């Protein structure tokens, strides 16, 4: 399967704690993106990291990319109850417009 893998599948933390989720992909990529999906809604783009970048920050989000290991991680610092959602990575294979999504991490932040 071309599906990317994410772990953990589910994560439950207390408000204020940090949440880390990991993504692995299979092909050489142009970029890797992270999306959030609230229950019953469409996906919302969070951050994009290009294949020549190693780390990127946006607000409380920090993304790292290790192309030698074909992996990425998303760190959400000081989590809030509103961060409760599913998080997906999506890699764009080199030379294509094709997005390959990971299996998703369900994050629950307890108030």
């Amino acid at each position, binding site marked *: 399967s071309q*599906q990317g893998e994410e772990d953990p599948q589910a994560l439950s933390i207390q408000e204020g704690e940090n949440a880390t989720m990991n993504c692995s992909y299979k092909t050489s990529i142009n970029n890797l993106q992270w999306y959030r999906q609230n229950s019953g809604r469409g996906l919302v783009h969070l951050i994009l990291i290009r294949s020549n970048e190693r780390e990127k920050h946006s607000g409380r989000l920090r993304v790292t990319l290790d192309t030698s290991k074909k992996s990425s991680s998303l760190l959400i610092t000081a989590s809030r109850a509103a961060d409760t959602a599913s998080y997906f990575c999506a890699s764009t294979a080199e030379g294509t*417009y094709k997005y390959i*999504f990971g299996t998703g991490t369900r994050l629950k932040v307890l108030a």
Partner: protein
Amino acid sequence: DTAVSQTPKYLVTQMGNDKSIKCEQNLGHDTMYWYKQDSKKFLKIMFSYNNKELIINETVPNRFSPKSPDKAHLNLHINSLELGDSAVYFCASSQVGGNEQFFGPGTRLTVL
């Protein structure tokens, strides 16, 4: 002023029927996509159009036919619906293929 809209939001139909889902984006994007999200939340690309031209056509049964009348619209027609077609279908768009995508709210299709 919704960026990417889909209709209908819910679709319940009998096996064997033909149905369509419509998608419109008002972002001026060149590239549009259809995705299928199954009950395990796996999201898989089905089709992509760039300026009304088909550029991605994954291994999807030919009962599924996308149509792009103009670059702001990408509709999905499904013939002879089967139980396994039950899923949430998402439309998305991006300015350039491979960049940030904007997703519609999804259409939950239930085939009985």
